[in-house]
């Protein structure tokens, strides 16, 4: 097998592994196994959802709020865990009864020259999402956008060390963000 074929195979194995990882993650999340979902994240994770603004063309690079600006969400593992614990109290009224959520993840991309990962190595992954949330009788939200994740090879599997969620809305057209991305 040539070096190029070998590279191509490495890439294929890796991208399929990443895809399966995401699909497994979302299945667990949509199934409301919130505590198991937390296990997909490293202890030092940054789970960040910046905001969008309407800016002049010359300022378009700044239409996503920066790292120290206000954000919709900027959580570490501790606060992400608190969100889950709040739902599990059963008296978090915004999620009582629970919302019904489905995630569609697609456009999963990694660097073409990504090599096989050894323990501790990190890989940037981009993906797109469509999230559908329905609650009570007719409350329905669709959110679409992108994610930029950093996956870290840990114990032969992956942990998400950073997740950045970029939605396509400036004014948020949902009543709340009680769901996860």
């Amino acid at each position, binding site marked *: 097998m040539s070096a190029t074929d070998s590279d191509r195979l490495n890439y294929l194995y890796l991208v399929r592994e990443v895809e399966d990882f995401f699909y497994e993650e979302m299945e667990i999340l949509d199934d409301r196994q919130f505590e198991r979902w937390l296990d997909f994240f490293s202890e030092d994770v940054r789970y960040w*959802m910046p*905001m969008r*603004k*309407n*800016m*002049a063309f010359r*300022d378009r690079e700044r239409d996503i*709020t*920066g790292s*120290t*600006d*206000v*954000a*919709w*969400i*900027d*959580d570490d593992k501790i*606060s992400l865990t*608190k*969100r889950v*614990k*709040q739902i599990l*109290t059963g*008296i*978090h*009224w*915004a999620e009582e009864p629970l919302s019904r959520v489905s995630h569609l993840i697609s456009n999963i991309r990694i660097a073409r020259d990504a090599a096989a990962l050894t323990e501790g190595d990190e890989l940037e992954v981009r993906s797109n999402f469509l999230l559908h949330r329905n609650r*009570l009788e007719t409350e329905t939200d669709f959110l679409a956008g992108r994610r930029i994740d950093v996956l870290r090879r840990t114990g032969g599997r992956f942990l998400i060390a950073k997740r950045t969620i970029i939605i396509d809305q*400036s*004014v*948020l*057209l*949902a*009543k*709340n*963000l*009680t769901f996860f991305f």
Partner: protein
Amino acid sequence: MGISTPMIQNLVNGQRGEISREIFVNEDIYQQERERVFGRAWLYIGHESQVKEPGDFVLSRMGEESVIMTRDRAGAVQVMLNSCRHRGMRVCRYDEGHTEKFYCPYHGWAYNLDGALSHVTEFDTEYKRQDFKWEEWGLIKVAKIAILQGTIWATWDPKADFDAYLGNARQMIDLSFRAWDGEGEVEVIGTTQKWIIPSNWKIVAENFAGDMLHVVSHRSVDIVGIGPNKAAGRRDASSSGNSSYVQASYPEGHAGVIGLFDKDDPRPDYSASPATAEYFQRCYAKRKKALGNEAFISPAVGSIFPNMSFHGNQPRTILVGHPIGVDKTELWRQYFVDKDAPDEVKAFLRSYYIKYSGPAGLTEQDDMENWNYATNASKGYMARKFPYNYAAGMGYETSVDELPGAVSAIKGSSESNARAYYNRWSQYMDDSHVVFK
């Protein structure tokens, strides 16, 4: 159809402590509010730190209308309708930025930062045979602007007086939006959160005016604990039995819940962040020197009629509920830190604030769920015939020495704040007071 005085008096019944559900769901009442409340009250526009330099601008709202706030060439704050005088196109579609002028993309009219008309397309060829008065065709400006501790307010009512409007409630804003040391300035942390909720705008203002009985709403966040300390709860508790929170309402319709701290209360706040705790203590020492007895007054939460709500301490934030329909409100929320606080302190506070408030805030989410379905359940043909009960604490009114002019409540779980708010609302809605004929 106009809403008459007798109708309003039936809707808000002070004697019985009952308020009709109609005021939250009736389309005619909402249309009248647009004129009688939003057309003449003082409305919160933004903060001076959003327009620091001449040429800076930010979009804001007055009621349903988009307005532009600028810092003009002379350094003054200007507030004007975001609508070209020619055919109405929005001359500004950017949430914020810096510009020399506003250009309309439809026919090319242009305006200066102070709203004055700067350019009319084909003026020399098409406008010379009629008496076109240049000075009459600038962007429509508000009647008055007022600024208090950097908070900027505007009104369409040329007879409005901001000091009279606030009355003694001024103290709540004055104390909340100074720096922690009592003298310095605060600034907005960047961008305003904006999101839409399916609720009437007034239920939002009422909540922050001081809803003392909705502890169960926030039980879940209190259990998990997001406070700036290591315990459960969502804020620091006072460490002295002699500190207390009291209700305060004012005849002008404003109301809040105000912390009166014991002079010996060491205020061991922000223990989860040593840098913030240390900064707070340094500032508190200075605040006591600068403000004397007023240093011990800490407004926790409140609303300035009609739709500006704030937290003055933990968190420190302003929310405006902009009506976009009888059952839809666009919430705009901004967060504040001391301008001169260390970066580590600003970062800690930012992190705490956005876990508390906003659509992803563990506290705010449960409020919004209640507001949503309270509005929803009141629309029904039968439901709207039955009034809400606002009678808690009637007859328990008292005054508080530290808060001149405030009506407080003996037991501290009164609905007197809401009653004061809706009493003022009914005065604004009374058609004998209409200003614009």
